């Protein structure tokens, strides 16, 4: 009677030692190849001298956005050889952000309005003030290059102005 009860209790065990050996070999290999610091890049360029003031023959209107970046405020202006100055002035905006990236949604919204109207537009010229730090430049570029669109639980990115030109304000400008 005693032996029968004892036999029922015994459960066959799987030998996990070979699996452990495999894991011990894999983990150091993966540790060597693991990248805990993921880096990416933002493509950019500097302004180049243009060929002249003639309007291009393109049918679709292209608007170039200029962002005068300060630590407190961003001034958005536009330029296009195909549009009237009045029309361009309508698209101008001033966005108070005080260095807070949360407030850059207003910038993305303003740029999206331009993008919806003139879909071929893709260039943003950044003109930061001398006291602006690189981190602020990157934050503004993030808000200008892509727009986060949330539909239900899914968030996707749509391109706004992915072509970045870094420029500098001339003394006395602004």
């Amino acid at each position, binding site marked *: 009677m005693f032996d029968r009860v004892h036999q029922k209790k015994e459960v066959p065990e799987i030998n*996990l*030692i070979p699996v452990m050996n495999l894991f011990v070999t894999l*983990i150091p290999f993966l540790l060597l190849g693991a990248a805990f610091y993921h880096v*990416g890049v933002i493509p950019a*360029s500097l302004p180049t001298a243009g060929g002249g003031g003639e309007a291009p023959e393109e049918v679709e209107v292209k608007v170039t956005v200029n962002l005068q970046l300060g630590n407190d405020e961003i001034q958005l202006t536009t330029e296009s050889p195909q549009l009237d100055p009045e029309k361009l002035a309508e698209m101008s905006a001033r966005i108070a952000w005080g260095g807070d990236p949360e407030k850059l949604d207003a910038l993305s919204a303003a740029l999206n309005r331009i993008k919806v109207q003139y879909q071929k537009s893709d260039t943003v010229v950044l003109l930061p003030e001398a006291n602006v730090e*690189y*981190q602020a430049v990157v934050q503004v570029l*993030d808000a200008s290059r892509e727009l986060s669109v949330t539909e239900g639980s899914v968030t996707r990115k749509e391109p706004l102005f992915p072509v970045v030109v870094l420029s500098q304000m001339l003394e006395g400008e602004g």
Partner: protein
Amino acid sequence: MNIRRHMKKKKLTLQVTSLLDMFTIILVFLMVSFQAEDQDFILNPGVTLPASDAKSPLKPAVNVAVTSDAVFVDGKQVFALSEENMTQIAQGVAIQPIAEAVEKVLERLKNKEDIDEGVVVVQADKATPYPTLYAVLQSASAAGLYRYRLVIEKE
């Protein structure tokens, strides 16, 4: 007597199930972190990259690093960001020592196949004032590089 005999029979085994659970978690985490593309990148000491949600991958190219006190080209210091040099920075024009160092590196990398030509990879500290960054870009353009890849830390 019977009980004693039974106790002798019992084999002692090491309980490795919980250890295996832990190893499985570590393995999955490391497999997710495994990225071959970032292997070539060496972050210059003294640089804290700005955070960004940019997704473009990094490709090897001429490497220029900007720390709080110097500019490095391919790991070698070429220009000190001292107070006397700041007037040169403020002018927003190309800085000759940087342009020359970039040209030298460019010459050396000419025959390498996996190098992104005409591109300079800029790793600048997030607190770098914009005029410094702009002067560095201008210097690279004086050396014939007109496309820039600003390195960021992915969020």
